[in-house]
Structure formats: structure tokens, C-alpha cells
């Protein structure tokens, strides 16, 4: 039962973060909040007894993907005049 409540809380946080990623104006906020979605997903995987998937999701989803997006943002800003922040 406690597990179910925790999963519902985590899903709610990731839903809020996902909606925030869509509606926010600054690109960097969207990148960070999509990282939050991945982090919540990885905790959920841990709760439903999939530790290996949780490990991969935490390392790739919230670690490397966020950084790759940040580098991509840097590239885009370098080529355009930075107008969206």
C-alpha cells in the first residue's frame, strides 16, 4: 500500500514536470524538468523491482541525456544570437 502511494506521488511529480517542460518559456528549464521526469521514472522502476532498468534510466535518462541536450543548447545559442533567454 505504501508503495502504491509512493508511486502515485512520483507519477504526479513527473506529470507536473512534464507539463512544465512543455509550457515553460526558457529552454533550459524544459531540459532540467525533463531530467526530473527521468529521475522519477527511475525511482518508480526501483519500486517495481527492476533495479537494472532503474540504474540505466538514472544514468542515461537523467544524466547523459540532460547533458547532451545542454551541449546542444550551447551549440544552438552559439550559432544564433541568443534571443530566447
Amino acid at each position, binding site marked *: 500500500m505504501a508503495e502504491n502511494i509512493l508511486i502515485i506521488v512520483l507519477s504526479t511529480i513527473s506529470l507536473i514536470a512534464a*507539463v512544465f517542460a512543455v509550457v515553460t518559456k526558457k529552454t533550459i528549464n524544459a531540459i532540467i524538468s525533463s531530467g526530473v521526469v527521468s529521475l522519477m521514472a527511475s525511482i518508480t522502476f526501483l519500486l517495481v523491482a527492476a*533495479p*537494472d532498468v532503474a*540504474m540505466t534510466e538514472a*544514468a542515461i535518462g537523467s*544524466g547523459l541525456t540532460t*547533458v*547532451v541536450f545542454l551541449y546542444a543548447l550551447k551549440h544552438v545559442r*552559439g550559432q544564433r544570437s541568443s534571443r530566447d533567454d
Partner: protein
Amino acid sequence: MIKYILIFLVLIGMAWLFFPLVVEFFTPDITNNLAANYVFGSAADLNMPNAVTAVVVTYRGLDTLGEVTVLFLATAGVGFFLKRKKHMEGIRRPGSEILKTGSEILAPLIIIFGIYIFTHGHLTPGGGFPGGVVMASAFLLLLMANENFGFSHGIINLTETISGIGYVLIGITGLVLLGLNHFLDPRWLGLGQWGRLFSAGAVPLIYSFIGLKVGAEMSGLLDSLQSDGGEQ
């Protein structure tokens, strides 16, 4: 405004679509024939406690080989497209004092943890892919903390090549030693004692090669993203 209303409509639609899946979900008490074969076969035939690794490396080994190939192609593509703008070498901002000190303590531990994950893939959760990515995240930490840090691309390419060739060679050895339908069969190396590090045939070797390959590819990808195009 209409955009937000549409977003919430799509969200409600998705919830309506997936709600039956969540409500009707239950954990089955008995496994079906295929799953039972995998679960009991991993213990009986392969002497491997982690059934997930048994499926990924042995029973579905060809899929894993394809997955490694796809990853290699993806990183090679990124490297190819980023390497063409070599003249845009930028000035890197040094990391803060906290980041520098923290990375000195944490990076070796993270690398050792990554090595642990992929060498113990047949015993504990995890395997080559998570282990390699964890190693790459340690290199990312070093890359962010020190502005002069860089990899030798020769070593990275060498690691990648040796791991890829080693993985295929292990598969072919199974083919040569055990017979025609034993490509990627790890049982040509002794099965060893249950639960020890050197057991389960060639699986630790295969996962070490995959881990090194994934780690080298990811580190090379991050390095080429870092060293290219930063002109601020």
C-alpha cells in the same frame, strides 16, 4: 491559451487510453513455458543467478550484438558531424572549487562502481550497458570540472576496437568449439562455481567487453560535444 487547453486534452486522452492497462495489471503467479525455460535454464544450463543477463547475453545474444552495432553507428554519426567544424575551438570555463574537489573524490569511485556493475553483470543487477554509462558519467564529471581535461582519442578508439572485435571473437569461438548453432554461446569456457565472479562461462568476458565499448563510445561522444562549438 488554446495551446494549454490542447495539451491538457491530450493528457486526459492519454490517461483514458492507458487507464485500463494500469487497472487490469497484475503480477502473474506462474510463468509461461518460454519464461520458465529461461528462468530455470539460466540456473541449470548456464549456472548464472541473474536470469535477466542470461536472456540478454545468451538467449537473445544476437539482439545484443545488433544493439551494440546500433550504438556504435549512432556515436560514429555524431562524431562525424561534429568533427567537421574543427576551427570553432572555444574557451572553456573552469569548474568551481566545489566541483573540482568533489570530482577528485567521486570520479575514481564512480569508475570503480561502473567496473563493478559490468564485471558482476551475471551475479547482480546491471551489466555492460549501465556499467559503461556509469563510467562515462565519471568522465563527464572530470570533463566539467577541469578545463584542461581531455581524452586521448587513440586510446578511446583502441578500446572500442578491441572490445568490439573481442565480443565477436567470443561469439565465433562458441561457433567453432561447440558446433553450428552455438554462435554467442558462452558455455565453451568452464561454468565454474555457482555465484563466483569467474563463473557462467564467457558471460563476464562478454559483458566486460560491452561495458568497455559503451563507456569508450559515450566518453568519446561527450568529448566531441564538449570540444566543439563552444565559442562563448
